[in-house]
């Protein structure tokens, strides 16, 4: 197996490094990414052909219910171990992310599992993530949008009484002249609700979120 395939394979199985409990004692994504850099593989190629390809497989398998949440989490952890090594060299070569995602769970809602899964899959797909965490106010979203005018905004909710806040948010964004595409997700919302409140996209799970985001940026 060549080095990039091996990086992809170790992302998929979640072997972040030599000491991780997955394939214990075997070199993981962290070591393999370092080795690839030493051998002169470009950071962009390591990202696209190694890490992103691995997370792409995870996304597809998760969507098809072939793998489960913990398997996504360990894969994302492995991907992040590689990103930590790649960050510096990527910046130096002037490599740009696919796009930026501002993400947060809306005001009054403290749930973060779905939001985190989406952030991980999007990062794995090559997006830069601005994670505003949970209980995010309208103002906080808008400040982040002003700082990242090209970013997509992802709003999440689990509670039925907080999902209504999404509508007010989108209204406020538009009134303030912020035209960033907004996508929403979470257990109580659906396509119909997304349309009703004027969201640009709806994703029913984390893997779909990546597809929707790419569509919104015209990348598909």
């Amino acid at each position, binding site marked *: 197996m060549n080095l990039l395939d091996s990086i992809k394979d170790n992302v998929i199985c979640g072997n972040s490094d030599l000491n991780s409990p997955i394939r214990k004692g075997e070199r993981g994504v962290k070591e393999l990414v370092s080795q690839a850099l030493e051998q002169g593989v470009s950071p962009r190629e390591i990202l696209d052909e190694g890490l992103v390809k691995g997370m792409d497989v995870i996304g597809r398998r998760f969507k098809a219910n072939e793998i*489960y*949440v*913990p398997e996504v*989490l360990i894969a994302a952890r492995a991907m992040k171990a590689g990103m930590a090594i790649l960050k510096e060299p990527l910046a130096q070569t002037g490599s740009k992310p696919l796009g930026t995602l501002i993400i947060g769970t809306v005001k009054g809602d*403290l749930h973060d*599992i779905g939001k*985190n899964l989406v952030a991980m899959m999007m990062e794995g797909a090559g997006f830069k993530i601005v994670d505003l965490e*949970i*209980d995010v106010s309208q103002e906080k979203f808008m400040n982040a949008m002003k700082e990242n005018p090209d970013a997509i905004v992802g709003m999440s909710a689990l*509670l*039925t*009484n907080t*999902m*209504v806040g999404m509508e007010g948010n989108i209204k406020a964004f538009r009134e303030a002249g912020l035209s960033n595409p907004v996508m929403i997700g979470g*257990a*109580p919302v659906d396509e119909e609700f997304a349309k009703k409140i004027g969201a640009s996209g709806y994703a029913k799970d984390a893997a779909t979120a990546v597809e929707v985001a790419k569509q919104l940026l015209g990348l598909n």
Partner: protein
Amino acid sequence: MIIIGELLNSTREKIRKALAEKDAAFLQDLAIKQQDAGVSYIDVNAGAFAERELDVLEWLIKVVREVTDLPLSIDSPKPEALALGCRLAGDDVILNSITAEQNNFRSIVPIIREFNTKVIALPMDHTGLSEDEGKIFSIANSLIESLGKEGVSPDRIFIDPLIRPIATNTVYGPLALNLIRRFASSFPETRRICGLSNVSFGLPKRKTVNQTFLIMAMASGLDAAIMDPLDEALMSQVKAAQALLDLDPYCMNYINAMR
């Protein structure tokens, strides 16, 4: 063991559809099935309808009341919905739920008092869900105390350890079990409750995880659960666990259920 039937919840797609289409027969059938399965309370939730929640909740309660007199658990974060539910539901209501966050607490206590209800207490405050056992315990402690000062005695309180999915962090299993154990020994007059299905989110064969967790939680002092009473294996295990914990004299409930 107090079982609250969870099925009439508008966040479940089938229920949302039945509520939207006013399919009374479907909802009434589920109410009767839960009653026949032996629940003590039926949970009703219309929260998915957002601004129409009150209207839908009113209709749902009326429809349920046409077929059963079982007490209800009114499930909403909105004080107006809880109060409306109390007015329509009759005696022995459980409010689902109250938290230690001040605005929430202040707006829900008057409803508990006016309608003399029971209440499910979630030990979280303005800082949100803690991961720290000691902190959750101390919020629970002060929440029970605050409710006591408002005249809500411990026997009307169902305290919840806030179970989170072990798929995201496996420490959540022992965290919940330890809290149930501590609640049972420190607040013996309260009931310990949980929303069961949360624990298995993100895992395959969720029912297996739910069933195993319920038995472990009962052994730790859980004595109420919001769950699917139509899961026959789960209901049988509840009865077996009660017999094993000396909560079923002569095992008669177990025998009668299995015969």
